[in-house]
């Protein structure tokens, strides 16, 4: 099923004009179609699978047709709503005269075969930290946005239309990624201005790619980066502006992610081009594939638990680390700690009461179950994979 899923995605991403499709799916195999749908849903790719199946002749009277029709309509709706909101947002930022950089989906979408192929849950924009207060006032004032939460590197808002905005003031959490952070903090040195709007900047191709890899590392180390990030990688390599490796490679080396990039580029070639792994490297790429495919968009609970145990050194230590959140994380959940660190014990206790809410308790129960189910072999295999990829 995994190969068929990747083949469907590839047919839309890499050769959408190709007719007839290579390796057509048996459209009468309902069990296969069910597993394909479930897998696509995990990665927010049902619209792409739907488009590919419709091209392969999925009948209108098939039980799957209305399901995929809805998925495609939803993807187009999301795109049009995000795109319209992005336009409004850029108008607000430009009127303030502040520089800004659209990130992730907003920046990459134009290079996809069609824009709604690249879905996003929100709009990501990078601004300078010095401008954050003024932008917040403008957004929450006349523009009608509502501020939701602040994190270690971004602030989240919701627009009157319901679209979510993440306003980033740094590209990554400094304390969690000390080796990547210095290079990422130089982001404003690697931008070009839009010819018609000097406030809107675009990352240089090499920095955009480097940031994408850094972002993949962050999610990979958290349990999985999703098929979509590998699709993005393919788009960067084959459809976006050409990359100067003489500029890019030193960035990757400095951030300690060159090995990861190399392996991820190979995996991308295996999935979406005709690259073949060597017999020696095939097990690694099989494991990476399984890790990503089972992880969903943001990583699976099981993967996260295994990684957590590796990072903290055992089941008990990991559970204690979840119970007692470090100050570096709590200060963003409780901004008062940044001025009054002595309140840390009280914030910990308040956080425990929050954890007892029904939704969080359910999530914790899942995490505990996943931790119990992990075998030593699974944890060890994951450690080997991370080591080979140059990750922690």
């Amino acid at each position, binding site marked *: 099923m995994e190969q068929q899923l990747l083949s469907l995605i590839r047919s839309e991403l890499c050769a959408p004009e190709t007719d007839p499709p290579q390796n057509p799916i048996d459209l009468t195999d309902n069990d296969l179609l069910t597993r394909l749908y479930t897998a696509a849903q995990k990665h927010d790719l049902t619209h792409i699978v739907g*488009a590919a199946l*419709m091209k392969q002749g999925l009948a209108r009277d098939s039980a799957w047709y209305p399901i995929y*029709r*809805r998925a*495609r*309509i939803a993807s*187009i*709706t999301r795109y*049009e*709503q995000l*795109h*319209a*909101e992005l336009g*409004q947002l850029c108008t607000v930022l430009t009127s303030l005269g502040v520089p800004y950089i659209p990130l992730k989906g907003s920046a990459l979408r134009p290079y996809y075969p069609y824009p709604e192929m690249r879905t996003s849950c929100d709009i990501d924009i990078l601004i300078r930290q010095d401008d954050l207060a003024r932008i917040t006032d403008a957004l929450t004032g006349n523009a009608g946005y509502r501020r939701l939460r602040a994190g270690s590197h971004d602030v989240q808002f919701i627009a*009157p*239309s*319901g679209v979510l905005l993440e306003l980033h003031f740094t590209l990554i959490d400094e304390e969690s990624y000390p080796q990547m952070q210095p290079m990422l903090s130089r982001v404003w040195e690697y931008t070009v201005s839009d010819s018609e709007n000097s406030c809107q900047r675009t990352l240089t191709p090499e920095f955009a790619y480097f940031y994408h890899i850094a972002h993949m590392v962050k999610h990979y180390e958290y349990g999985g980066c999703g098929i979509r990030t590998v699709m993005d990688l393919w788009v960067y390599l084959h459809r976006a502006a050409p990359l100067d490796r003489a500029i890019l490679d030193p960035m990757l080396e400095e951030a300690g992610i060159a090995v990861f990039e190399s392996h991820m580029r190979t995996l991308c070639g295996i999935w979406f081009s005709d690259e073949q792994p060597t017999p020696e490297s095939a097990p690694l790429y099989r494991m990476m594939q399984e890790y990503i495919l089972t992880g969903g968009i943001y990583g699976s609970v099981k993967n996260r638990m295994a990684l957590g145990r590796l990072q903290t050194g055992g089941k008990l230590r990991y559970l204690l680390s979840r119970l007692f959140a470090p100050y570096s994380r709590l200060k963003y959940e409780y901004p008062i700690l940044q001025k009054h660190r002595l309140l840390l014990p009280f914030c910990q206790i308040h956080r425990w009461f929050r954890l007892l809410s029904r939704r969080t308790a359910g999530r914790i129960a899942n995490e505990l179950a996943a931790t119990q189910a992990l075998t030593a072999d699974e944890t060890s295999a994951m450690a080997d994979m991370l080591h080979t990829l140059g990750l922690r």
Partner: protein
Amino acid sequence: MKLEKNIIVREIAGEYILIPTGEAALKMTGIFAVTEVGAEIWKRLSQGKDEDTVIAELLAEYEVGEATLRQDYAEFIGRLVDSGLAEL
């Protein structure tokens, strides 16, 4: 007639969908699928054209009788009004 602003027409696998953006997205729930002719009517009305102009242009493009087209037009406008996408 006043049309809801911020509506975009998109074609998906041979169907046409009216997609709300901005604050229209909060007012409109569900999927509003239209025919190709409906999409053409919406586009022309969005450009500020009146009924007679819309009918005349569509008669030039499609092989359909005027009476049928006017009936389709009226039904389409009725759907828009009922869905809150237009006001008479």
